[in-house]
């Protein structure tokens, strides 16, 4: 192998040495970083800049050259509200309905996700029969495409779906789950938890298995009850992992779109319209296409996600420093 690589390296060495002579050893690092920076700039940084530019323009043209500069008007439209708690008092009521729906969704979904993932991880970490099988079962929904998840549950919950057929058979009688705002929202939370729980369970399971066995042995010798062991040993030692799970679930929760869009389309009315769907509909699905308003809304979402990421970084650093 070496006899193949050596000649190649000798060939590469010539221009690299020349470059080093010209740029100096410190600046040479930029040459190595350049391909990665180029990709990052093209696919991450440039879109962000473009988004900022679009957010300050109006009209329905795609090309920037055809879009008039409107300054912060789009942000003003989104924030024009006499009472932020009441979307009906806002100029862009659909945006604030989406904001509040997302807030409620994230609160419920993340809370349930963390609780159920923890419970499942603790159970799967114990000495139970067919443990490997159950670990796979809980992880399986994570492998499904969001659209498949949505279609499966739509098939179950629609008026003439599997659940209503079962309820009819038992004599309880069916219910139009997807036409009632509260039920549609509740099912959206449930489906999202069902679809993603396996991923967080896996992270928590890894965290549980990293807790040294001897701590539990000491607790057993001290005759600590299982609940006390869980509260005083498992939870504190699992806290860093739980924090990661919490922040990841929060970020993912704010970004919720595809499976709920395919499941309810955001309805009934706007009951399950979340912020990313609002951005999609304003920018791409509706007429006229309000790219400026959609860009402004997406920057506000980005701001929230940046804050959440900073919290995660801060928490990680705090944990790392003990």
């Amino acid at each position, binding site marked *: 192998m070496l006899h193949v690589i050596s000649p190649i390296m000798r060939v590469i060495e010539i221009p690299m040495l020349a470059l080093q002579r010209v740029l100096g050893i410190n600046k040479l690092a930029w040459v190595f970083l350049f391909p990665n920076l180029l990709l990052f700039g093209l696919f991450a940084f440039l879109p962000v800049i473009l988004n900022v530019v679009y957010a300050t323009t*109006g009209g*329905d043209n795609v090309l920037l050259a055809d879009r008039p500069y409107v300054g912060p008007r789009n942000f003003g439209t989104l924030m024009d509200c006499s009472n932020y708690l009441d979307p009906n008092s806002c100029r862009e009521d659909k945006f604030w309905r989406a904001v509040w729906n997302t807030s409620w969704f994230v609160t419920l979904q993340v809370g349930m996700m963390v609780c159920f993932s923890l419970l499942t991880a603790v159970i799967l970490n114990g000495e139970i029969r067919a443990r490997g099988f159950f670990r796979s079962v809980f992880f399986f929904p994570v492998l499904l495409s969001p659209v498949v998840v949505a279609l499966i549950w739509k098939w179950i919950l629609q008026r003439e779906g599997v659940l209503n057929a079962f309820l009819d058979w038992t004599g309880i009688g069916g219910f*139009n789950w997807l*036409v009632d705002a509260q039920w549609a929202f509740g099912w959206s939370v449930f489906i999202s938890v069902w679809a993603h729980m396996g991923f967080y369970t896996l992270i928590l399971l890894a965290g549980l298995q990293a807790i040294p066995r001897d701590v539990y042995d000491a607790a057993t010798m001290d005759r600590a009850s299982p609940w006390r062991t869980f509260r005083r040993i498992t939870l504190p030692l699992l806290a860093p992992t739980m924090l990661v799970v919490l922040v990841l679930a929060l970020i993912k929760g704010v970004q919720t779109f595809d499976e709920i869009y395919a499941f309810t389309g*955001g*309805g009934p*009315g706007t009951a399950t319209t979340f912020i990313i769907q609002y951005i999609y509909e304003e920018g*791409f699905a*509706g007429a*006229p296409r309000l790219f400026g308003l959609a860009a402004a809304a997406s920057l506000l979402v980005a701001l929230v996600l940046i804050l959440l990421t900073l919290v995660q970084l801060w928490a990680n650093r705090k944990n790392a420093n003990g």
Partner: protein
Amino acid sequence: MNKKLMRTTAILAGLSMTASAVAAQEIRFQCYSDGNECEVYEDLLSRFEAQNEGVDVIVDVVPYQAILENLPVQLAASTGPDLAKVTDLGGLNEYYLDLTPHVDASYWEESFGETLNWYRVGDRQGIYGLHSQLTITGPFVNATLFEQAGVEMPGEGATWDDWAAASRAVIEATDADFPMAMDRSGHRVAGPAISYGAKYFDADGVGSFDGFETFAEAFVGWNEDGTMARDVWASQGGSTYADAAQEFINGEVAFYYSGSWQVGRMDEQVGDFFDWQVVGSPCGPAGACSGMPGGAGIVGFEGTEHPEIVASIIDFLAAEENYAEAAARTRNLPAHLGVAAAGVEFENASPAAQAALNGFAGALPDVSPVAFAYQGYSGNRAMFGITVERLSQAIVGELSVSDAMDRAASDLESALAETQ
């Protein structure tokens, strides 16, 4: 050896030049189907290709959603196809290729008359689109359910209230689920809304929801009291389209308000399951009994590298014999006045489908001039979307009807301001 190499190079160069010459005449046609339209066009266009050597028309069959959502973005970014089948007739006008210099304008004006205006906006008054599929909205009625219930169908001139009462009586007497259903679409409610007094335009000819509230009150009321299938409008969000065709086909709905493009589907899928028929659009308190015209058209785009070929393709499809054949094979109402006057023998259409298509064609004179104007209005897609969103919110109780109408008016004002 050198000579051989040179000869081979020359042949290869010649071949590649020929290939690029052929490739230079490759025309891409973005098409969506309600039934078999793209298949029929592909067949017709193979004849065009045979008559025009070197032209290769590639029919890209895409979902309707792609025409609504992706095509406008492609056109704005100058990456669109050469021609396409579209439904946002006036809305995409700025991208249309004017066919006037390439076709016999007098033939087009005589043959397509009013529908040509649907593609025109402001100063752009050329010939832009071949209206390939004329549609009109109207009701399908499950005659078997009426018969089983012993309820007489309301006759000519019956109102929406008459049909609502009769349909409710049918459901009470049978085990069907819904008296009435209407597609979740701003286009579909437009005809009934006009019959209830919606003006759709203000005094300056600008889009407006003046007079819409009367229909909105009635429609929301029907959804609340179970007259309308609430699932169709309430189980979706945004302005997403949803129809109730499957419910009608399953025999769950007595009266289904949709349009002529569903005839093929009804013909194929209902079969002998029950008897169905098309009746004229019911009348409203404003005195009109209007449906809403519409449909799809084939347009060329200015961005094409081959405007003459694109124009000749559209002109070929507009020729009376080709147009008549397409209408017969796709079972669509003809917008070509000559073809319509001669009558179309729709291929493979059952007597029920034939009667339904004739029924829809017969309802055309009842269509209000407001409906024709609304169909040609460049802001109609924005208005359709706003109608669906705000009416749905009123149906599920997020907004009162009056608040929903206020919101609709302010949404429209913002939309018009953004597009100016």
